[in-house]
Structure formats: structure tokens, C-alpha cells
């Protein structure tokens, strides 16, 4: 057990180092950092002096080491565009992204998994077919299109629709920004205000829809596979009640492989949040990153990379550990653990 944890930790650190390396290369070798930082009329001597002060003439590994050391302490440099420490910018934006992602993740899981189980158990039922059809649409619509659609219905056209049918069926929901937030230390939360909560609705649904349908289809196909196995047949042959077979045996076996993919999907949510933030102008990290790409703000780009890399590595680590805890076969056979998809 310990060996497994240690090995996974080492792997994670390696990946982080690789990501850090890419981020650092960005930092130093894309264009000239000095040019990006100073104005046109800075003289050559001033630039040289800046180079020396910033240590840009030191050997590669020294700079890399310094970069890493800074990063670990939370110092990501200064944004070219905003002229403020990147760490500060990120701290302002991270809560928005994380709150959105968490709500979307909860939605996706708590709707996706039960729907997947239902459509797996009732293979040919009418409701199941409806769910399946809806899910197909769900994974065919790109996230940004869903967002635009929601904005169209609940933002632009809601008044017209309500007027046409005579009563308020379609609520008017905020489609821009985050609403009012409350500051708790360095974390700004939108959970504590009405406008904040309202503003969360459309973006989180947008973000959740794609993942929700993905999870639903995944759970369903796993469930169907499991229901075909010998041990389910044997459980039935022993006269076990339907509930015991479906939920005790089938469900548990379904969820085990689903954990890995679901974990990775949750990582995807943080990535896809980027798109949702753009559509709804949600002031999160993703929006910051897109703006940084357009403005060639290297420090922000590099830091976003590191942060996202960190999130993913942590998520993967947790998922692997969870898998280890849940599946007894892994505990006995270490060789299997290495080869588990």
C-alpha cells in the first residue's frame, strides 16, 4: 500500500516538473521578456541592466531552479498587461472558477449517475429511450452553443415567450458576470447573495450538461456490461432479490471503473469552465487565460498552465488512490495496479 502511494506521488511530482518545464520555457524563450515589460523608449543600457537584475543571463538550470523555487512559494512573476503580481490576479479569479466548477460537478454527478443507472436497468423502457435521445443531443452540442442557447431563451427571449403564452413560464436569469459577492478572507464567494446564486444558474448548467450526459452514457454502458456477467447470472440463479442483484452487485461493480473516468471528467470541468466563462463573461481563471493569450501575457499563461497542471495531477492522484481503496484486487496484486486502465 505504502509502496503504491509513494510511487504515485513520485509520478505526480515528475509530471509537475514536466509541466513546470514547459511553463518556464514559455516564460523565458517566447519573445524577449524584457521587450514585453518595458516601453519603447527604454535605452539599451537600461534593458541590459534589467536583464542583469532579473538574472536573465544566468545559465538555464539556474533560472529554472529559481523559477521553481518562486513558484513553490507562490511567486509567479508580474503580469505584463496588468502590472500586478500574477499570484494576486489568480487569487482574485480562482474562487469564481472553483465555485462554478464545483456546482457544475455536483450537478453532473447527481443527475448523470442516477440517470445512467436507470437507463442501464430499464434498457428498453420508453423513459430510458427519451433520456438516451436527450443525452445524444447533450454530447453533440458544444458547451458554448449550449450557453448561447440558454442565454437566448432565458435572457433575450424570455419576456417574449412569457408574453406569447400569457404567463411566466420562463424566468429571466442573469447572463453576465457573477452577481454580488462576499469577501471571506482572500476568497470571494457568490454563494451568500441572492444575485450571486442566480448568476450561477445558467453558467453551471451550461458547464454541467456535457459532462452530465457523458457520465450518464458511461454509467449506462458499464451497467449493461456488468449485467451480462456471469456473477450477475449466478446471483440470479441463487434466487437473490432484484434489488440485491441490481444495486448490491451490479451497481457496485459498475461504479468502480466509473470512478476513474468520472474523476478525469471533473478535471475536464475545470478546463471547460474556460469556455463557459467566455460565454457568460464569468470573471474566472479561464477568462483571464484567454485574455492572456490574446495579449501575449506570458507570466499569466505560464502560471495558468502550472495551476491547471497541479489541479489535474492532484485529481488523478486522488482518483488512483480511491480506486486502490475500492477495488480489493488491486491491493493484493501490485502488478495489476500498474496496468489498470
Amino acid at each position, binding site marked *: 500500500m505504502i509502496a503504491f502511494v509513494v510511487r504515485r506521488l513520485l509520478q505526480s511530482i515528475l509530471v509537475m516538473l514536466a509541466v513546470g518545464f514547459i511553463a518556464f520555457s514559455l516564460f523565458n524563450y517566447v519573445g524577449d521578456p524584457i521587450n514585453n515589460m518595458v516601453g519603447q523608449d527604454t535605452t539599451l543600457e537600461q534593458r541590459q541592466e534589467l536583464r542583469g537584475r532579473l538574472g536573465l543571463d544566468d545559465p538555464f538550470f539556474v533560472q529554472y531552479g529559481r523559477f521553481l523555487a518562486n513558484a513553490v512559494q507562490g511567486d509567479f512573476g508580474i503580469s505584463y498587461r496588468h502590472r500586478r503580481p500574477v499570484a494576486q490576479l489568480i487569487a482574485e479569479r480562482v474562487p469564481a472558477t472553483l465555485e462554478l466548477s464545483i456546482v457544475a460537478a455536483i450537478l453532473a454527478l447527481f443527475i448523470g449517475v442516477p440517470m445512467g443507472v436507470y437507463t442501464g436497468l430499464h434498457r428498453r423502457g420508453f423513459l430510458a429511450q427519451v433520456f438516451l435521445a436527450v443525452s445524444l443531443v447533450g454530447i453533440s452540442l458544444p458547451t458554448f452553443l449550449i450557453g448561447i442557447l440558454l442565454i437566448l431563451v432565458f435572457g433575450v427571449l424570455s419576456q417574449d415567450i412569457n408574453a406569447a403564452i400569457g404567463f411566466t413560464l420562463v424566468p429571466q436569469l442573469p447572463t453576465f458576470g457573477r452577481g454580488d459577492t462576499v469577501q471571506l478572507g482572500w476568497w470571494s464567494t457568490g454563494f451568500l447573495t441572492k444575485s450571486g446564486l442566480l448568476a450561477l444558474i445558467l453558467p453551471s448548467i451550461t458547464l454541467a450538461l456535457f459532462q452530465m450526459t457523458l457520465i450518464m452514457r458511461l454509467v449506462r454502458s458499464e451497467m449493461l456490461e456488468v449485467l451480462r456477467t*456471469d456473477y450477475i447470472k449466478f446471483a440470479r*440463479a*441463487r434466487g*437473490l432479490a432484484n434489488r440485491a442483484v441490481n444495486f448490491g452487485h451490479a451497481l457496485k*461493480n459498475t461504479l468502480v471503473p466509473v470512478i476513474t473516468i468520472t474523476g478525469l471528467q471533473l478535471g475536464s470541468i475545470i478546463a471547460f469552465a474556460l469556455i463557459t466563462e467566455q460565454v457568460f463573461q464569468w470573471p474566472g481563471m479561464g477568462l483571464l487565460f484567454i485574455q492572456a493569450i490574446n495579449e501575449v501575457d506570458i507570466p499569466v499563461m505560464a502560471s495558468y498552465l502550472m495551476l491547471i497542471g497541479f489541479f489535474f495531477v492532484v485529481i488523478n492522484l486522488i482518483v488512483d488512490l480511491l480506486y486502490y481503496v475500492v477495488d*480489493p484486487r488491486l491491493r493484493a496484486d501490485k502488478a495489476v495496479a500498474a496496468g489498470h486502465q
Partner: protein
Amino acid sequence: MTQPAPNQPLLQVDSLRIEIPGRRGTLTAVDDICFDIGEGEVLGVVGESGAGKSLTGAAVIGLLEPPCRIAGGQIHFDGRRIDNLPYEQMRRIRGRHIGMVFQDPLTSLNPLYTVGRQLIETILTHSDFSEKGARKRALELLKEVGIPAAERRLDQYPHEFSGGMRQRVVIALALCAAPRLIIADEPTTALDVSIQAQIITLLKRLCRDHGAAVMLVTHDMGVIAETADRVAVMYAGRIVEQGPVADVVRRAKHPYTKGLMGSIPLVGHDVEQLIQIDGAMPRLNAIPQGCAFNPRCPKVFERCRLERPELQPVGPTAAACWLYEAAPVGSGNDG
């Protein structure tokens, strides 16, 4: 459950027909077979892969997977008709009255639950034991099937057992509620040869001790010869010969059975050549008219190609072959 009349068999299968509707038409996998099993008796059902043996077993216990379905005939258990029961009623018969053992012990056990948990769950489903009582009973069962250090083994997972041990656990699970009939579908095929004999002996002993009848489905004639009281030989979805095992093995009547017996090398006998039957069993969509075996039969004649023979008594056994027709066509041949 009505008490069977003293001469009524425990399991009676009449003209069972199993069909598989497909895109290009319906295939008949099991074509009007009749057999029965008495209390405590071991009936071997032997035949090649694809002959329909496993489907028959699945039909008896009510676990035919769609699209396969029972298209005709009746199955009676203990005097009561069971082939047309709704799911919930059949479920109560499963495990409690009819048990089943599958071929592969590795895939028969849920890998995520301990062996003890699976045993206790089954015991609790069919009895009023308390949790502790069930655990005690599970322990007894494990000991009965010959698992050493049973106390410790109860809390272990299936992957921690060897193949033979796992099959013992499977047998224990099937016997949990003391069913009167066990359907064993190729119970030793997936095991090492050295273990096969042990498991078969165990199965036979336990069933005798518990008074359970066994429908032993296998392609291994040797196992049948060792274990069964009677045997039914299946070919292309039909029973071609039936009877007490000693008679069928030593004095096979049907040419197919003769071929089967002849292909078994016997210890102590030197043979020049093992008998081999030319050709292969026909696919379900290409079953010949008349007797299904006629293209390969060394004794074939015209009638074989036209009419399908029914099981006729020939001495102590019964064979479906025109070579042994007792009465002329048209008398007493209604299945």
C-alpha cells in the same frame, strides 16, 4: 408445492423447444426434447459445444437470455409447471429449490465482495437466520466443501482463492438453501485436469448427502461415466439417445453415441486408431432434413434423410434412430 406422486419425477421436461429469433429468421436451438430427472438422481447431459445442453439448463432454471426464448413444450418441477411462471415466482424457486453451478468459477463470483458476504447474503435470502446464525451456517458450508482454514477464508476475496477452491465456494453457494435439483453446467471444464476429479467427486458426494438431484451438463463423456446414473446424449438440439449410463456407454445404440464412445482412448486397451466421426455438427441455420446426423452417419439410408426419428425404446435405453424402429410409421409416434 404439491408432493409428487411416488413415481412422478422431480423434473419433467416435455417437448421443450427453444428458439432464437434472428434477423434472417428464427433458429431452433433445442428441438422438442423430452427427459426427466428423478429425486436424487444424476442425469448427465452430454454433447458437443452448440448442441443445446446449456440452453436447456438455462431454460429449466428460467434464466434464458433474450432473444432466446421457450417456444414450446412444458417444464414441470415437483408436479408444478414452471416454464411459464412470472419472474418473481420463478425467483423464489431459484436457489431454494433449483440451484445452478456455472462453468467458470472466476467469473461466477463477484470480485468486490468477500466470499463470506456472498454466502451470508444467499443464506439470509432463503432462510430466517440472524446475521450471526447465517455466518455460522456459511462456515459450516465452507467446511463441508472442503475449504481449509474456513474461518479465515470467510473474509477473503475470490481472487485470493485458487481455481479449484473457488469452484468449491461456488458449489457451497449453490447448496446454501438445500435445493432439490442442481444444474451443473460444465462445472469442471475451466479447471485443471488434476482438480477436475476432486470437484466432481465433491459434487456427487454432497448431492447424495443432501438428497439433491443433479443435471450434469458436460461434453466430457468420462465425467458422465464416472458420475451419472442416467445419460442423455444431445446432438444439434435433439436428444439422440437416453438411458442408464452403463448401458449407453458400453452398448451404445445410436451411431453418434457409438462414435463418441469410440473416440475415447481407454486405458489398458491398445487401439490402432481412434474412431473419428467425419464432418462437424451442423450449424443451427443448416440443420439437415430428417435425422440431423444423417450426413455423417456411416449407417445412413433413405428414410434417415426424409423423416426425423423420435426416441424409441431399444432394450434398456432409448435411441432416436431409424435403425431401431420398433413399430411401423404412424403408430405411437406422437413425441
